[in-house]
């Protein structure tokens, strides 16, 4: 059942040979039913056996396809009676032979034939196209066999193959390969056999698939186990790292052990690198002799060693065979030692990098030459990274421990004074609280009844705190300043800069500070200095009402408090200083901001001073906390208000009204500043000289505007007074130096701004000037461009001129007047309205004073009429009135001083033209003249050329006609002569024959002349056209040779040919080139009386050269050029003797040139001549004469 189904899946081939069908579909008649059944049973059994055998093979050799394929093919061949069997695998493009069975000779052949494309086989093509089975009953009967390439024929001819069965190995839609069976007789395979092979094919596909999966599984397993091994190693190292913090050696050892083991190395080392030296930090399995080398101490590795390379590149160094390394070969001592002492062969050094700095190297070695794999290198790199981490961890751990130790110590120390510190820290910058706390704490802790702190304030010392002192003592001491001296405890401490104790103030002979002592009632009194840099800045004092001296310990404690008091005072001092600085800073920042604002105004309104002045003054006034500000600029010996700021009273403003000048009296601040060029501050105007003298300005300032304090700052440009800025306060409060400086700064900026504006305006003026001249230049250039572009289109040029003149000279109408007969008419105009144009169409002008144009013609120079209505000579016409014409400018177009036209510019308003504009119009007029002149000359030339061409044409035509007309009689002359010489009219006498021969030769010479003249006239008329076709240079030479051979023989000259064995085919006009060579050879024979004439051909670089060398008289250098000209021979005396027209070379030269070639002569008088011409091998186009 299964078999039958598989049979039906085999597609039936439409063109299967009939024999196949008959054999497989109908039982053989003579066979008995039993025999048939027995055979079928036997067959089925055999096939079953085969299938199960194959399955067994598949099961027994997993992952190995060859035995499976062998088993399949062997059984398939046996069961299908095939002579040859194959399995091919297919990679999508080519078929690869996997196994083949058959006779030896065939196997040798098929195995060396290599992978095959589908097209190499009649059946592969069909399989690739999608068929499952490709069966050919007889290859030789295939229609494509006849046309097929050698392969199908080879297998038939060489190996007798006739029948082919190819079955596809296909998994889903993918073609994996084929099973191919051959028979040596033309006997198709049966359906059953095909079904069997198809079955085998399915099994092969299963086997291929199994193998693929198995290999994949194996690869995965290998990958996984490898990864697992490495992971295990890594985790082991990590465990060591974590279990021995701070200890590196076990980590290094574990790392090395794992690296060596996993990477299948023989031993390993871990180096540390520091300050250019390397030391071994760990070794594993290193041969003792080599280990000893490193145990001696750190080494400085050579640059060529692996370590040296690590240091230089910070990259892994992998030396597969150290004995093959150039450094070893070169005798590098470390390498030599490594090989000699340690048997090193393969080295892998991986750098340990921290922040891209080399801190060590992890090395593993093999004593055999075997490269480490990429994975192994990666693993060692991983270990190296971990080593870096371990080193870093250890370092951090040590640091942490050190820090912890340090911290605990300082903590112990600090705990003691914690309370005080707490206060200090809590009220860091409230000094009084700190000192109060200290005073109280000192008293309490040292069993004193009272205490106080004395501080230096200014130059003297005062009590600043007190604890438990009675109020009258406090009142008393408030005003008492203490000074160094023996009379008081404080005085003594200040004197000695150390602690002083008076056991009983009442019993101390030197003690004089008795009144306060009595008021407070103390007896024993202790003073401890507050020392800063060894100097007392205060004293802490403690008193006891009984005579009970303080112990050393108590004094020491008080000293501690004194120190803390110094720290507190110092802190506050620093804090205050900081605050002050900060204030100063913010102030200067404010000023800076103001300055930058002013600067931004300056930059944002270039060329405008008012906003700059306004901003500047406003900022100056505000920043200096002033009420008003005024800026003055000097104008000669007077002043003008340039800017004002603040709500100045109207009455005072009257005084300062901007724009009006004023001259202050010599004592007024402004005048003094102008003189001294230095800032002046008047603290109170009311007491100033100017005010007291009654100068109106200061009087008004004080009495009207209530101004009291004022600062005036000069504005200086290169130390020259150009103005000033003044700011005012309505109260008596002087400005600080800083404020004055600020205003000075603004004054400087004001000067810069003024200067900028001046420069800017200058620049603008320059730019405008330049722009104008540029515009004119451009216009001129434009016109010149138009002239050069339309040389012969005069109207365009004149139109451009009028348009440019109108635009650049701001004219409403521009006309160019040119002669018409005896008068002048408009030949170009711009901005002329059509109606106006019509009016002027027939208007003509002639020289005369009544019009601008007429006057210009009359005077021959520019005429400028500002207003025609104010010109008594002007003849006003309606047209002029209608167009409202006022200003006119006429510029003559002069050629050799004579006006040949006028360029007239018109304005419809009274606005005279500037000199520049008149000059520009003159330039335009000159250009108009040039253009007119150019056109005139051009037309003249054109006319001449036309005439010349006409004449030349006539000449050529004449020559052509003449030569034609001359040919007809020549025919009769030469024809008759030949007929007579050919004895048509009977035998002429020998004498007659001689005469006729001369007639004939003269006739031929005449014909030659006629032909040459015709050629030349054709060339000149441009009628000579080359007939371009393929030709052979060799033929040309041979043709010429045979036509002149007899001539040479007659003169007893040797005529030779030198042709290279191979001349490339050429393309050109064969007849004309033959003519050229004939001419050259003919000339040589003609002019050579003895010796030889040699023809030589050469071809190179896409062209060929033909040269004719003779042993004739040669040509003088002076004549060498002449001979190529028409009707010229080197020596005219020879013409009579030798004949010739003198046209041949001229024609030859033209013909060669028409081929894009060159004709030349090399000759010296008395040494013969060589005429040569060089022509491209392939001439596709005729070269026109230039």
């Amino acid at each position, binding site marked *: 059942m299964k078999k039958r189904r598989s049979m039906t899946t085999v597609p039936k081939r439409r063109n299967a040979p009939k024999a196949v069908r008959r054999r497989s579909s109908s039982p053989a008649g003579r066979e008995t039913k039993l025999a048939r059944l027995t055979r079928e049973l036997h067959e089925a059994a055999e096939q079953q056996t085969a299938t199960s055998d194959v399955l067994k093979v598949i099961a027994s050799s997993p992952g190995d396809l060859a035995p499976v394929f062998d088993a399949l093919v062997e059984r398939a061949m046996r069961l299908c009676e095939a002579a040859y069997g194959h399995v091919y695998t297919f990679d999508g493009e080519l078929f690869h032979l996997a196994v083949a069975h058959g006779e030896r000779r065939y196997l040798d052949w098929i195995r060396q034939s290599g992978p095959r494309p589908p097209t190499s086989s009649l059946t592969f093509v069909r399989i690739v196209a999608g068929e499952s089975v490709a069966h050919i009953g007889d290859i030789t009967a295939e229609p494509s066999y006849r046309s097929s390439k050698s392969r199908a024929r080879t297998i038939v001819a060489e190996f007798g193959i006739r029948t082919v069965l190819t079955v596809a190995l296909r998994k889903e839609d993918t073609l994996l390969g084929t099973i191919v069976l051959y028979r040596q007789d033309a006997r198709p395979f049966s359906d059953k056999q095909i079904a069997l092979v198809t079955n085998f094919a399915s099994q092969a596909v299963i086997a291929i698939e199994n193998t693929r999966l198995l290999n994949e599984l194996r690869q995965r397993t290998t990958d996984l186990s490898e990864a697992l091994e490495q992971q295990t190693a890594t985790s082991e190292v990590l465990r060591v790292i974590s279990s021995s913090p701070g200890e590196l050696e076990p980590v290094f050892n574990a790392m090395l052990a794992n690296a060596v083991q996993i990477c299948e190395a023989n031993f390993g080392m871990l180096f540390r690198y520091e300050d250019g030296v390397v030391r071994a930090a760990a070794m594993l399995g290193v041969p003792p002799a080599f280990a000893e080398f490193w145990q001696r101490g750190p080494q400085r590795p050579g640059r060529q060693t692996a370590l040296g390379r690590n240091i230089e590149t910070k990259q892994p160094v992998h030396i597969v065979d150290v004995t093959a390394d150039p450094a070893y070969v070169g005798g590098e001592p470390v390498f030599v030692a490594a090989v000699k002492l340690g048997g090193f062969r393969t080295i892998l050094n991986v750098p340990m990098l921290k922040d891209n700095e080399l801190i060590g190297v992890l090395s593993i070695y093999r004593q055999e030459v075997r490269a480490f794999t990429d994975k192994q290198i990666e693993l060692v790199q991983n270990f190296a990274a971990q080593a870096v981490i371990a080193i870093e961890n250890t370092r951090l751990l040590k640091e942490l421990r050190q820090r912890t130790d340090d911290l605990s110590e300082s903590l112990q120390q600090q705990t003691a004074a914690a309370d005080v510190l707490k206060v200090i820290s809590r009220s860091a910058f409230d000094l009084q609280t700190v000192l109060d706390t200290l005073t109280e704490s000192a008293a309490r802790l040292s069993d004193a009844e009272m205490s106080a702190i004395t501080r230096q304030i200014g130059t003297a010392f005062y009590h600043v705190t007190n604890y438990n002192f009675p109020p009258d003592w406090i009142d008393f001491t408030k005003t008492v300043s203490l000074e160094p001296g023996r009379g008081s405890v404080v005085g003594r401490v200040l004197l000695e800069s150390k602690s002083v104790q008076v056991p009983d103030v009442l019993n101390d002979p030197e003690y004089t500070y008795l009144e306060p002592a009595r008021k407070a009632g103390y007896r024993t009194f202790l003073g401890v200095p507050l020392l800063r840099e060894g100097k007392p800045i205060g004293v802490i004092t403690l008193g006891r009402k009984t005579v009970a001296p303080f112990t050393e310990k108590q004094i020491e404690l008080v000293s501690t408090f004194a120190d803390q008091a110094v720290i507190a005072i110092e802190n506050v001092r620093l804090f205050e200083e900081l605050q002050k600085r900060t204030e100063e800073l913010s102030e200067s920042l404010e000023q800076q901001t103001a300055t930058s604002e002013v600067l931004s105004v300056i930059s944002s309104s270039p060329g405008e001073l008012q906003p700059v002045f306004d901003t500047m003054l406003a900022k100056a006034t505000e920043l200096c906390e002033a009420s008003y500000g005024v800026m003055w600029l000097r104008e000669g010996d007077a002043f003008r208000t340039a800017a004002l700021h603040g709500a100045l009273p109207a009455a005072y403003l009257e005084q300062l009204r901007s724009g009006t000048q004023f001259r202050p009296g010599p004592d007024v601040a402004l005048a003094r500043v102008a003189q001294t060029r230095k800032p002046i501050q008047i603290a109170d105007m009311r007491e100033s000289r100017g005010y007291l003298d009654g100068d109106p300005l200061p009087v008004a300032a004080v009495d009207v505007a209530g101004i009291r304090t004022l600062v005036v700052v000069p504005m200086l440009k290169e130390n020259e007074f150009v103005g000033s800025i003044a700011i005012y306060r309505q109260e008596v409060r002087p400005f600080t130096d800083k404020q004055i400086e600020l205003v000075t700064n603004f004054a400087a900026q004001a000067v810069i701004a003024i200067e900028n504006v001046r420069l800017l305006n200058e620049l603008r003026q320059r730019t405008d000037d330049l722009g104008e001249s540029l515009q004119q230049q451009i216009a001129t250039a434009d016109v010149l461009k138009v002239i050069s572009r339309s040389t012969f289109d005069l109207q365009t040029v004149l139109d451009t001129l009028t348009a440019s003149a109108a635009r650049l000279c701001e004219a409403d109408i521009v006309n160019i007047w040119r002669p018409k007969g005896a008068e002048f008419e408009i030949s170009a105009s711009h901005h002329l309205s059509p109606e106006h144009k019509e009016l002027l169409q027939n208007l003509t002008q002639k020289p005369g004073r009544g019009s601008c144009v007429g006057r210009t013609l009359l005077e021959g120079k520019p005429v400028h009429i500002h207003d025609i209505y104010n010109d008594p000579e002007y003849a006003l016409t309606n047209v002029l009135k209608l167009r409202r014409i006022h200003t006119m400018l006429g510029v003559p177009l002069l050629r050799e001083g004579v006006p040949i036209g006028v360029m007239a510019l018109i304005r419809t308003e009274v606005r005279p033209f500037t000199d520049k504009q008149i000059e520009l119009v003159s330039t335009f007029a000159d250009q108009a003249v040039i253009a007119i002149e150019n056109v005139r000359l051009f037309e003249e030339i054109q006319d001449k050329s036309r005439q010349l061409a006409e004449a030349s044409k006539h000449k050529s035509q004449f020559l*052509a006609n003449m*030569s*034609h007309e001359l*040919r*007809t*009689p*020549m*025919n*009769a*002359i*030469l*024809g*008759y002569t*030949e*007929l007579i010489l*050919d004895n*048509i*009219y009977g035998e002429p006498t020998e004498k007659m024959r001689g005469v006729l021969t001369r007639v004939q030769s003269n*006739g031929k010479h005449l*014909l030659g002349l006629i*032909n040459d003249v*015709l050629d030349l006239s*054709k060339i000149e008329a441009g*009628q*000579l*056209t080359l*007939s371009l076709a393929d030709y052979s240079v060799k033929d040309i030479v041979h043709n010429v040779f045979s036509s002149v051979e007899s001539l040479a023989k007659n003169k007893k000259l040797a005529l030779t040919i030198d042709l290279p064995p191979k001349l490339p085919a050429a393309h050109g006009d064969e007849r004309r080139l033959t003519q050229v060579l004939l001419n050259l050879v003919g000339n040589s024979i003609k002019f050579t009386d003895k010796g030889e004439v040699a023809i030589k051909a050469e071809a190179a670089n896409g062209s060929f050269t033909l040269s004719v060398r003779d042993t004739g008289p040669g040509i003088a250098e002076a004549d060498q050029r002449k001979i190529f000209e028409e009707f010229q021979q080197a020596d005219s005396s020879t013409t009579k003797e030798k004949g010739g027209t003198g046209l041949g070379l001229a024609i030859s030269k033209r013909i060669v040139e028409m081929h894009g070639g060159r004709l030349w002569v090399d000759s010296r008088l008395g040494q013969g001549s060589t005429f040569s011409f060089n022509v491209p091998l392939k001439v596709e186009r005729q070269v026109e004469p230039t």
Partner: protein
Amino acid sequence: MTKRILVVEDQEDNRQILRDLLGSVGHEMIEAHDGEAAVAQAAKHKPDLILMDIQLPVMDGYEATRRIKANPELRAIPIIVVTSYALSGDEEKARAAGCDAYVTKPYSPRQLLAKLNEFLK
């Protein structure tokens, strides 16, 4: 073997040369002095070959050639144009008119005879 040659030529000298030349080899020569006569003579005598000048009165040789070649009965007669026109394009024009060969004047009678024999074989 005697052939009948039609010579179309307006110049007596040139006709005489041909007369002598053709007579010397035993050919029969019929004459025409212009193109129109040439067409008529060709139709009348059905010559074995025609020698045709180009510059002819009444009708030029080009037209005469064209007409003869347009006549199915005469088309097979070879026409050799014999002309003193030697400008480029002249031969092309003659070939376009239908002539079988082209010979420029002045010709060598010997060579013309050789050319004739090519067509008379």
